[in-house]
């Protein structure tokens, strides 16, 4: 056992002597959380709105004020013609435009209908859909008010009832719809993958590349001891990272943690093991550090970021990728972490995901130890 301890100590010295990598390892979780908290958001606010109003009258001005007062919109330009809009859209100065027809107010009072056009920059389809919804709702509300106002001027109109269905919406589990609440679990998966898979792969292949692996093998250390010795420090760093991220999330962004913290940490530990075994597997297949890095990147990091539901929802992906996502450990961990943090559920809901993670880990460990041994012996 003392041989193992010696190996551990050497590994720690290695890590300490490489301040640049160490800095990145420590800074990474911190920076990521900040970035995700403040930068990665999908809420739409402060919409830049342009108005095309060829003949302003009391009606158009009224509706224009409505938009300005809605709080979501910011009127950036008022132009007389639709042709003026193109450069505004192309430079991004405007995201949406409301186009009144000439004689809008007149038509409104004296004809069956007046025409209005909403033009939205739908380059980003989601934002486009949201913008449409916002604008439409402002117009709807204004219409309804006009209708009820007309009730008052009874002499001019026959009061008309318009059917109104009143939606009562509850946003479950994420009432404030803070994007940060959603990203934190995925962030943990991301950072842990880097630390566990990437670093492990590189550390092991570095020994192979410099030839020191051979001297390790010739020593009385058994292969499993070598692996444990090299990998254990990253287990610790991984745990520290998880705790760091959690603390940041809880303190800085007030992300909820409705479930059991211990369960979360335990699942975190399980995921670290999964990532570590992936890293070992990657390193077992190659002796070149660079190939290991690329392999780890493509094989672990990218899938974990893209296909885990971290940023992009899994349901939105084509079926092929959704199926692929099934075998990606990150996807399960994200589900588990979100469940614990946001919904406050326990193993009763999460046992399936946990089981999958556990089985995956065992399989990977078996595959990697076998691969490791045959390569070296």
């Amino acid at each position, binding site marked *: 056992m003392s041989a193992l301890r010696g190996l551990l100590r050497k590994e720690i010295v290695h890590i300490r002597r490489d301040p640049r990598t160490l800095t990145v390892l420590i800074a990474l979780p911190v920076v990521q959380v900040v970035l995700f908290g403040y930068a990665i958001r999908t809420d739409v606010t402060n919409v830049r709105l342009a108005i095309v109003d060829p003949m302003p009258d009391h009606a158009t001005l009224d509706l224009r004020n409505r938009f300005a007062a809605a709080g979501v919109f910011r009127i950036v330009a008022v132009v007389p013609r639709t042709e003026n809009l193109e450069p505004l859209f192309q430079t991004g100065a405007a995201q949406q435009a409301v186009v009144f027809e000439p004689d809008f107010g007149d038509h409104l009072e004296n004809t069956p209908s007046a025409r209005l056009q909403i033009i939205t920059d739908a380059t980003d389809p989601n934002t486009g859909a949201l913008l449409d919804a916002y604008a439409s709702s402002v117009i709807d509300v204004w219409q309804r008010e*006009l209708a009820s106002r007309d009730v008052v001027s009874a002499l001019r109109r026959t009061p008309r009832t318009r059917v109104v269905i009143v939606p009562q919406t509850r946003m479950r589990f994420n009432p404030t719809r803070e994007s940060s609440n959603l990203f934190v679990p995925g962030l943990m998966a991301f950072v842990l993958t880097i630390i566990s898979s990437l670093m492990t792969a590189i550390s092991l292949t570095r020994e192979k590349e410099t030839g020191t692996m051979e001297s390790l093998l010739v020593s009385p250390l058994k292969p499993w001891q070598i692996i444990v010795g090299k990998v254990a420090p990253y287990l610790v760093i991984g745990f520290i990272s998880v705790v760091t991220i959690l603390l940041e999330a809880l303190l800085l962004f007030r992300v909820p943690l409705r479930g059991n913290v211990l369960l979360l940490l335990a699942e975190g530990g399980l995921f670290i093991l999964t990532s570590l075994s992936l890293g070992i597997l990657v390193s077992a297949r190659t002796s070149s550090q660079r190939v290991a890095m690329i392999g780890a990147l493509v094989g672990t990091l990218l899938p974990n970021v893209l296909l885990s539901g971290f940023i992009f929802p899994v349901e939105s992906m084509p079926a092929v990728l959704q199926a692929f996502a099934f075998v990606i450990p990150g996807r399960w961990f994200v589900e588990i972490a979100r469940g614990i943090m946001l919904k406050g559920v326990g193993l009763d*809901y999460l046992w399936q995901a946990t089981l999958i993670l556990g089985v995956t880990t065992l399989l990977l460990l078996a595959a990697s130890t076998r691969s490791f041994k045959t390569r070296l012996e």
Partner: protein
Amino acid sequence: MHRILYLAQAEVLHVIRDRATLAQVFVVPMVQLLILANAATFQIRNSDTYIVDLDRTTVSRGLVTRMRASGHFRIEEISSSLDRANEGLLAGDVTLAIVIPHDFERNIVRAGQAPIELSVNAEKGSAAGIVQAYALRIINDYAAELSPEAAGEADARHPARIDVSVRSRYNATQNYKHYMVPGILVALVTLIGTLLTAQNIAREKELGTLEQLNVTPITRGQFIAGKLLPFWALGLIELALGLALGRLVFDIPLRGSVLLLFGVASVYLFVALGVGLWISTLVETQQQAMFVSFFIINIYLLMSGLFTPIDSMAPWVQVVTQVNPVRHFVAISRAILVKGAGPAEIARPFLILLTTAIVVLTFAIRQHRKVAR
């Protein structure tokens, strides 16, 4: 000077001969492009929805039919089990649960208005918002349909009714890939420019070949030019490949001038290369180069509006992104390809890119020393 060409020639040979580099330059980015473009979407496909119809009248059925017909929702109805709906939300099975209460029809007929309950699984993030928007739109339209006016009474004294037409510019098919691919191309070019450069020069440091070059009379400028030239060309080749792939596989629009895009890319690459060069002066080994590059590129990409809109970011972050060259190139790329913008419209971000290129390169060249202090 000829020295630059000799160095560049040797550099090209390096790249061709090294299989790992070739894979990194050609294979990995294309694979990334394909996967990323498919995965990176917030587009809502069929959202699983529970509808609990506690009313079971013609009017309530009418709403259910409308929602089914819209194609946005995959509807599973549960007769009267609110618990099931709740469970579904908890388990993450559904994005939306709608409860049509008792007396729905009665309230509409009698009072002209009725409540309806929507529970949105906000865990799904922006999907939740979109789904809610769709649902509300359908509900609104249905309400309009139910209004007596819909019966088509030709009363000249109708109250004001606004005919709203909605036009979506630039992405009529709402294809998320058209939005993502131009941005992803920027990411790929950045990776080549920065990561590869940093890695390459760090490798020379590690192997000692850099020292051998420092001992020759080659000047700092000649060395950097000779080194960066091949990567600059590679970056542009990468862009071309990516564009071709994007066009062939995803049918991305090419509304603006592709030549203009390449012109901007040429300038942008100087920034990326400069950053790579600067990173190489900070590190001693390849591994460190990879790590630091990755770390920095990661920050750039996340703050670039590539994955999530700049407009959604916290205000102070938006200000910070002004110094992020990736942000500007992503905006330019989207403006040119998707919106068909020309030189006038992209002038401002382009000028920022140009300035950044000059500053970064000057700084990086200054940092790189032939003689150690």
